[in-house]
């Protein structure tokens, strides 16, 4: 298996980076780092795809002219263009997701003054408890009155 992994070293590296990104996305407490993890994860998939389109010894998918000035459109000259197209789309996708997630993070920080989503939950429950206690005290006063 290891020998095969050496052959597919781009893919293997991509998969390892995917794992790093995924664990960042799931485990990091800090939202900014989570989003960096998301980006790492997505980029690794693009690396994977780009590696899948590569064919050794071939040219980039830009049509070239031969000596006589004719366009060479022989499929055995160029690498596979499909993954490039997919990755182009994918890069914009991850940019959009990043921008949106960052905007959400800023709003969260504005409300809770923390970049940690669990801490935000904790703060929220504490606030609610305080609110309930206040209500309870008020209603007790009502009873006394």
């Amino acid at each position, binding site marked *: *298996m290891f020998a*095969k*992994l050496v*052959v*597919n070293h*781009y*893919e*293997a590296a991509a*998969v*390892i980076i*995917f*794992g790093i990104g*995924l*664990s960042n996305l*799931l*485990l990091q407490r800090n939202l900014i780092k989570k989003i960096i993890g998301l980006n790492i994860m997505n980029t690794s998939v693009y690396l994977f795809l780009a*590696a*899948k*389109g*590569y*064919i*050794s010894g071939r040219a980039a*998918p*830009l*049509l070239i002219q031969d000596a006589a000035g004719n*366009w060479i*459109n*022989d*499929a*055995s*000259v*160029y690498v*596979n*263009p*499909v*993954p*490039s*197209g*997919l990755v*182009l*789309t994918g*890069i*914009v*996708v991850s*940019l*959009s*997701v990043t*921008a*949106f997630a*960052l*905007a*959400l993070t*800023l*709003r969260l920080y504005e409300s809770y003054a923390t970049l940690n989503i*669990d801490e935000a*939950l*904790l703060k929220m*429950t504490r606030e609610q408890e305080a609110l309930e206690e206040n209500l*309870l005290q008020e*209603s007790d006063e009502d009873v006394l009155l």
Partner: protein
Amino acid sequence: MNEDLRIIWRNFFNWVMGNGARPENEEIIPEAPPDLPFTQKQESRNSRFHELTLRERYSHWLEIHGLHLFSNVYSGMSVLICVVIVLLLLVTVAELPKFGSENNPANNEVMERYINSGGEETGAKNIVSGMILDYRAFDTFGESALLFTAAVSVLMLLAVSRRDSKNSPERLHKFSQDDSILRGVALLSIPVIVLLGCVVILNGHLKPGGGFSGGAILSAALIFAANAYGFGSVHKFFSERKFVIMISSALMIYALLNAWSFFTGANDFEAYISKGAIGNIFSAGLILPLNICLSLIVAGILYGFYALFSEEEI
């Protein structure tokens, strides 16, 4: 036996309803005149201070330890899942077709047609451009719509909400720097950047690049201008409304062009668009106008992101 059943039932009932445990010998008082309404408030307070049912004990315990427990369990699970996924993927990768080989399943008739007849069918020298803007134009349309979605959402989150509360004039010029060197450099470099952007966009079907990268370069020019002269001066010719209208109308033209080519293509109608000769600027049919629209959208949206994230009104 019946009593046992009743006790089991009662426990279950308490568990379901979360009432306080009730004394066993309590009589049912049927049909007293309905003066006392059933109020939940008293009930919850009783149960809160006197007797705790299983569920309440559980929830109390959860309040104290729950978050820690949850995050520990969650982390453990996540680590496990990540490790499993990576190992699985590594094993998978080892079994995948070989890297760089010609005989991979991915190198099939699809790719052959893109290369063999891509030049004639789309008129683009850059096969990738031809592919994403003609063969698979719907994907790219979805992508620009996605960018639009993100822009609209960020606008909602960062601009619209605070316009009522935090819109003060001094904020508008807070970050504009009165730096003459910067302005001089900007005066020199901005035209160059814009020119570069235009070249990248207009050559999208000939060379690497195209709407996305060109749009990013254009937005860099705008950002530079905003930093050098302040957002206020950028806004003199680019108010928020104009901005939105620019993005929307560029996207609209883009969508309509796409729709035209989809509609004619699917129904085998005449499209009235010539492909031109490969290698010319004015070739490749719709790809050039599409790239221009795309670059306008991207430049506008990226500048919008920048402005919103630096707490300015676009």
